[in-house]
């Protein structure tokens, strides 16, 4: 393989992983926007998406149906999580929500382990043919699904936030809780909705990545940290930032592991992440004033 096609190959791999990170980062951003908190249960929803899809696939043998049902189920789990641990907080503040989200993550992981088991699970890709050869490089068809569905989801989110009254209400509640409530926005409902969206995005990421990497109950924390890093890298709270941060992190990992060492894949990515955040504390697309909480 000559240098040119190696770079292309890495580019494809990086964009694939990066899309997954973008989906997870979007979950962090949506919850951050509505509560100012970091939701560390985000990674667990990725695992649930993958594992529930696998379970449903085993009984239905229909990948599409299994994944759609899994994503819906995990979205409901997201709603339940918010109702059970965030909603009862009398005076919710960002730090408190972040803290309970860590507890939520630990409980979710234990529940997943108890109910779905410790064994890694998987299922075939969405398309019959698993690999395409284009111009000398191999592209896994699942990567195309990942990139395509991520784009569709992010576009839908963009339309929701910019072009629906509910999306605007959610942004308003994020910007100023009291002022939004005064004009009649049900702030608690917008928080619940943001958890549903975050869980949906996370579960979608899990359902998409499982055919490539398998899924097991203990991957949640790593997915969470990657998504969190991507969100910070792109600029926390920024929708386009999730895409930019996710892709940047995915590409860093792909190129870093090829040109330097795959043992240091995560370390390289985090080193570059730190370097970028030293230079631009608000992230690549973040505005300084977005970070004030």
């Amino acid at each position, binding site marked *: 393989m000559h240098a040119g096609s190696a770079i292309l190959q890495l580019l494809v791999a990086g964009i694939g992983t990066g899309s997954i990170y973008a989906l997870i980062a979007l979950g962090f951003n949506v919850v951050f926007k509505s509560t100012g908190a970091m939701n560390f249960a985000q990674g667990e929803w990725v695992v649930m998406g993958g594992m529930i899809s696998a379970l449903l696939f085993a009984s239905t043998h229909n990948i599409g149906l299994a994944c759609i049902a899994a994503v819906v189920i995990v979205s409901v789990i997201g709603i339940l999580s918010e109702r059970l641990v965030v909603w009862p907080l009398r005076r919710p503040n960002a730090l408190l929500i972040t803290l309970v989200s860590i507890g939520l993550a630990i409980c979710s992981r234990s529940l997943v382990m108890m109910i779905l088991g410790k064994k890694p699970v998987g299922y075939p890709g969405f398309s019959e043919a698993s690999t395409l050869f284009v111009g000398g490089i191999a592209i896994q068809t699942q990567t195309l699904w990942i990139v395509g569905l991520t784009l569709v989801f992010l576009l839908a989110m963009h339309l929701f936030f910019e*072009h*629906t*009254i*509910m999306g*605007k*209400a959610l*942004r*308003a509640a994020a*910007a*100023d809780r*009291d*002022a*939004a*409530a*005064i*004009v*009649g*926005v*049900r*702030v608690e409902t917008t928080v619940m*909705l943001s958890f549903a969206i975050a869980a949906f995005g996370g579960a979608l990421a899990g359902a998409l990545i499982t055919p490539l990497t398998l899924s097991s109950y203990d991957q949640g924390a790593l997915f969470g940290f990657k998504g969190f890093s991507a969100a910070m890298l792109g600029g926390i709270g920024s929708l386009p930032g999730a895409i930019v941060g996710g892709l940047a992190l995915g590409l860093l990992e792909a190129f870093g592991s090829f040109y330097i060492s795959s043992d240091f894949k995560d370390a390289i990515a985090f080193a570059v992440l730190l370097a970028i955040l030293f230079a631009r504390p608000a992230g690549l697309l973040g505005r300084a004033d*977005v970070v004030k909480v």
Partner: protein
Amino acid sequence: MSEALLKVDSLNCQFSGLRAVADLSFSVQPGAIKAVIGPNGAGKSTLFNMIAGVTAPTSGAIHFAGVRIDTLPTFRRAELGIARTFQNLQIFREMTVLENVMVGCHLHGKVGVVKALLRGRALRDEESAFRDTAFALLDRFNLAAKADVVAGDLSFGQMKVLELARALASRPRLLLLDEPAAGLPQAEAEHISQIIADLNRDGMTVLLVEHNMRMVMSLSHDILVLNNGQWIAEGTADHVRRHPDVLSAYLGETEHA
């Protein structure tokens, strides 16, 4: 006498030792402009916060249009028809001017979450209806040209008008205005006064906190004076102006009246 639109009964609010509002009772008749005045720290903002649902009273009751509201969540009071502006401007700075007002229309959304997910179209139709309503409001207040500007980039006076437009977008029956003219030059303060007078002529009931006495005296039908959280006088501008307790509350601090 017609039934009061807003009725406050023996309202108290205590913050760890400090009595911000003490045993306060008053009412606002429909169609009236009532001003609440008093020296700094008199409890005016706390009173507003209790009516709007930002602060919970320690005891007492608030009725709006016959409904007891002091235990209702903020958005429920907004649904009943209470809107407010804030002393220190709480607009959504990162959203456009038009979007700010559209969020104010939010209450009149009929499309629920489930329906929205199943039928994106209903949501889009509703969004464009709100867009028209919001634009008409901006037009009325000479802000239409700024519709797509990010709200944080407006001048201070424009932000004040925007906040008023956003409050009106929810089609309230009672407007709580917390220092609508604070920090504005006289000409812009008069513009706001004019807007309030016009709204009132169209039937809007207004409860107003304001330090600009020219505005208070020219707009209000009656005036409630607070000092240290307590009722000290209530009545027409003339009555209040001559009331000895009012004079001492305001002037006592500067000694010889």
